[in-house]
């Protein structure tokens, strides 16, 4: 199945493959398809245009160009395939050995390869063609003399990686011999990048052969490669354009097909392929409405009503967020907790408008300070002179531009959002650095992100976001990459901003302890749905939904000697989002599930203080 799927999913791959098979067949059979010989000179039939007898016409000596063209293609392709296969053989052998043996031998190998690699490939081929005299043999020798090096480096790198894989380590531990391991365990795993390299080496060699033919170092006469034919045709191209046009077209389309095949294969085997396509940068802006100050009084900062996000994927529609409703007050921190894959980050990104444009379907209502934000959104957010949304991402290194000094990234936001001059922005940036607790502000200002520690980077990110003077901050796992002490400091900072600036914080986390310790309210997300929400203290003391209970029970407790506190693991695993049924998504894992839980949507049960849970069991317990 894995073999046939890529062919179906990529028409480009299929087309180029079929085209190449066609060219190869013609190159093999071409000479038999015509009664003429490629070397037979007939001076009565010179320079004929393409016609019935001679489909490609004849040349200045009356030789049939049809057989000559396909014979030429055969020579060109032979050179290409031979060079590529020899490169492959040498590369696999030497690179594989160097990678497998490692140590001193590998170092020596890499040093010598580094020296050879510096020699321009094309000059080696040229020198060889001059020394040995032009010919198929010297071409192939020249091309493979240093041509195997990139392949060997590739294989060596892959072998090094594969050697660390568990299954290879296991095979070694089980006492399998090195050659067996290399052949059976490592080789199959290095094949895909090698295959791509191979597909791209063939056109390179074909190209080089034509190039050499053109500067007079091609296959010697009377044999003719495509390069030779093009060179000959070029001389007469003014009078007999087809003599140039036909071999040139064959050569170019073959090269194009090989390159397309290589590119498509590379994209296909690229591990990044599964990632969502990046958001295209299209002009257009989000309307964050101007809100008169009186309207904001007392109103919630953010309200989501029946928000749904679905992604269109090759497997079908993936419901990531299902009818989520929530509210967030100014100066409040709402924690959104759930396992990975529960849709927490998607929800955060959809509010700020950063979902991939292609393939995301968003519905529902999103009110920011009482005004509706349209979802999904386009382009850079137009936040000038308006209440602001800000978002902090999980990976502090990834969220800073690696090629811009940290301070400049803050100053830039100030210039753009508050219309400050650059000089004023710099002072203000240093100020913000102080506010987020950076000690040496000037040093940090001029440092590039990679020169800062993880905690510092995240502080810089906060400074960038504060530069926007936001009303709402969405913090997507802002402390996950940090150590515990830094975590606490960052959260203390958030709490401070909450009170001093009246900032509303949507704190997305999978860490229940953090949510318990810092959030005012908590919403528990399971499979894209909120299953329980309430004030932090209440919810953690008296969890009602079986999922929340399970989550809390799976936190290790310090007094584990007490048999009541034995560690508990939720049975089963999160559901496959493609096959959700109508009812409660947690039902299959639920210890108290009723038979009808699967089929009927569970009701919301309201408890005290805005504590709510969505569960039949909770409802029935309440009725008892």
């Amino acid at each position, binding site marked *: 199945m894995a073999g046939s799927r890529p062919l179906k999913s990529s028409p480009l791959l299929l087309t180029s493959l079929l085209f190449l098979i066609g060219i190869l067949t013609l190159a093999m059979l071409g000479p038999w398809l015509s009664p003429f010989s490629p070397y037979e000179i007939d001076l009565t039939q010179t320079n004929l245009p393409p016609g019935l007898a001679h489909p490609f016409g004849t040349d200045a000596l009356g030789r049939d160009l049809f057989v000559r063209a396909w014979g030429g293609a055969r020579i060109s392709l032979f050179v290409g395939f031979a060079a590529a296969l020899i490169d492959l053989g040498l590369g696999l052998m030497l690179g594989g050995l160097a990678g497998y043996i490692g140590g001193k031998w590998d170092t020596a190998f890499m040093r010598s390869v580094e020296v050879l690699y510096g020699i321009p490939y094309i*000059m080696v081929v040229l020198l060889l063609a*001059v020394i040995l005299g032009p010919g198929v043999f010297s071409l192939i020798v020249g091309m493979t003399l240093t041509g195997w090096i990139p392949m060997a480096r590739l294989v060596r790198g892959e072998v090094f990686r594969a050697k660390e894989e568990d299954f290879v380590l296991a095979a070694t531990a089980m006492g399998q011999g090195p050659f067996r391991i290399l052949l059976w365990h490592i080789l199959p795993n290095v094949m895909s990048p090698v295959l791509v390299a191979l597909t791209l080496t063939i*056109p390179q060699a074909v190209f080089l052969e*034509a190039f050499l033919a053109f500067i007079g170092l091609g296959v010697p006469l009377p044999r003719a490669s495509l390069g030779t034919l093009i060179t000959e045709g070029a001389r007469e191209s003014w009078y007999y354009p087809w003599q140039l046009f036909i071999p040139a077209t064959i050569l170019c389309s073959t090269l194009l097909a090989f390159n397309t095949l290589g590119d498509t294969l590379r994209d296909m085997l690229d591990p990044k392929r599964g990632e969502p396509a990046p958001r*295209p940068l299209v002009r257009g802006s989000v309307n964050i409405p101007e809100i008169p100050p009186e309207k904001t009084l007392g109103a919630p900062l953010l309200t989501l009503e029946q928000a749904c996000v679905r992604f269109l994927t090759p497997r079908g529609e993936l419901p990531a967020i299902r009818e989520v409703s929530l509210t967030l007050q100014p100066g409040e921190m709402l924690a959104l907790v759930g396992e990975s894959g529960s849709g927490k980050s998607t929800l955060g990104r959809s509010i700020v408008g950063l979902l991939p444009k*292609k393939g995301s379907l968003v519905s529902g209502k999103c009110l920011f300070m009482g005004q509706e934000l349209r979802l999904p959104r386009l382009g850079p957010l137009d936040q000038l002179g308006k209440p602001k949304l800000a978002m902090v991402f999980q990976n502090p290194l990834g969220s800073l531009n690696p*090629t811009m000094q940290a301070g400049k990234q803050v100053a830039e936001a100030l210039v*753009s959002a508050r219309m400050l001059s650059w000089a004023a922005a710099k002072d203000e940036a240093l100020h913000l650095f102080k506010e987020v607790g950076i000690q040496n502000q000037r040093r940090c200002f001029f440092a590039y992100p*990679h020169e800062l520690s993880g905690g510092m980077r995240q502080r810089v990110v906060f400074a960038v976001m504060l530069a926007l003077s936001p009303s709402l901050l969405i913090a997507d796992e802002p402390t996950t990459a940090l150590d515990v002490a830094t975590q606490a400091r960052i959260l203390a900072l958030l709490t401070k901003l909450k009170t001093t600036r009246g900032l509303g914080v949507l704190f997305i986390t999978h860490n229940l302890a953090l949510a318990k310790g810092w959030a005012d309210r908590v919403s528990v997300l399971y499979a894209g749905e909120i299953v329980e929400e309430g004030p932090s203290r209440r919810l953690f003391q008296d969890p009602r939904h079986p999922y929340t209970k399970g989550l809390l029970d799976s936190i290790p407790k310090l007094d584990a000697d007490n048999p009541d506190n034995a560690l508990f693991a939720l049975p089963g695993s999160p559901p496959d989002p493609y096959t959700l049924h109508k009812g409660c998504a947690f039902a299959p894992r639920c210890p108290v599930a009723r038979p009808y839980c699967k089929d009927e949507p569970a009701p919301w049960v309201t408890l005290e203080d805005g504590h709510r849970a969505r569960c039949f069991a909770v409802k029935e317990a309440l009725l008892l």
Partner: protein
Amino acid sequence: MRPARSKVSLQSRGSLWRLFGRVIVMLATLWVVATFTFLGMRLIPGDPFSDPKVTPQVRENLYRKYGLDKPLYKQYVRYLGNLSRLDFGVSYVQLGRSVNDIIAQGFPVSAELGLWALLLALFWGTLLGTLAGLHHEGRIDRYATFLAALGVSVPSFILALFFQHVFAFRLGLFPVAGWEGGIARFLPALTLSILPAATIARLLRASILDVLRQDYIQTARIKGLAHTRLLVHHILRNAALSVLTYLGPMVVNITTGSFVIETIFNVPGLGKHYVQSIYDRDYTLVMGTTVFYAALLIVAMFLVDIAYGLLDPRIRAFGAKER
């Protein structure tokens, strides 16, 4: 003003060592090329003076003149000595003609052509790559991607013939060949720029797509930056780094491309002389020029590598990428 950093002295010492290592590797590469060429010259069938018309006495004098009567190792030392003084040898066929003469004559022309091609390639490549990357999977992307694929698949000599035919013969917009006047430079430079431009476009497109996935672009979006600022400072500046790795191979592509382009457009540059000496089978001239080209490219790639280290703040100079 950049504040002093305590780590600086340690870092720069490390990079000096790396630089030293790189120089050693480069010298070793040059030595391999020189040795290879020297041995190759002995392998060439016949001997430049084996022409029967040359009398034994004259032949002996010629041998003495060129040092061919000495033992092989002395010839080798002499050859390396000459190379290190940047003397790339003489033609044994046309007496009095040396590689250095030809270089002095043709290299400035080739360098000018190469520079124009480089500028054009950067312009076209950046434009096409950026358009394609920003309109991922849109119509513009498909056209640009196809053009770029064509650009790397059509050999430069076919393009040259095509452009010459269409723009010079048929339309008469440009001179068919030659190097007189600014307008004559356009077609050769354009042809020479196509392959590097297409490669830049492909690299830049892939790199932009990669950059657009990064969180720092989302951060920049949230900042509400102006389009141009987002594009130039956040997207292009980061995407361009991966294109820099192509600068070395680009120099090679432009140089080797110049061989055929100069021949087709009759540009009096080094490349044309080089191809001519190949046609003439003037072996010593060919070998000398080849060594010159190889040395030029090796040094250029070395310089590009160093420049790359300096341009990417994440890479501590000369190769080591910080994790």
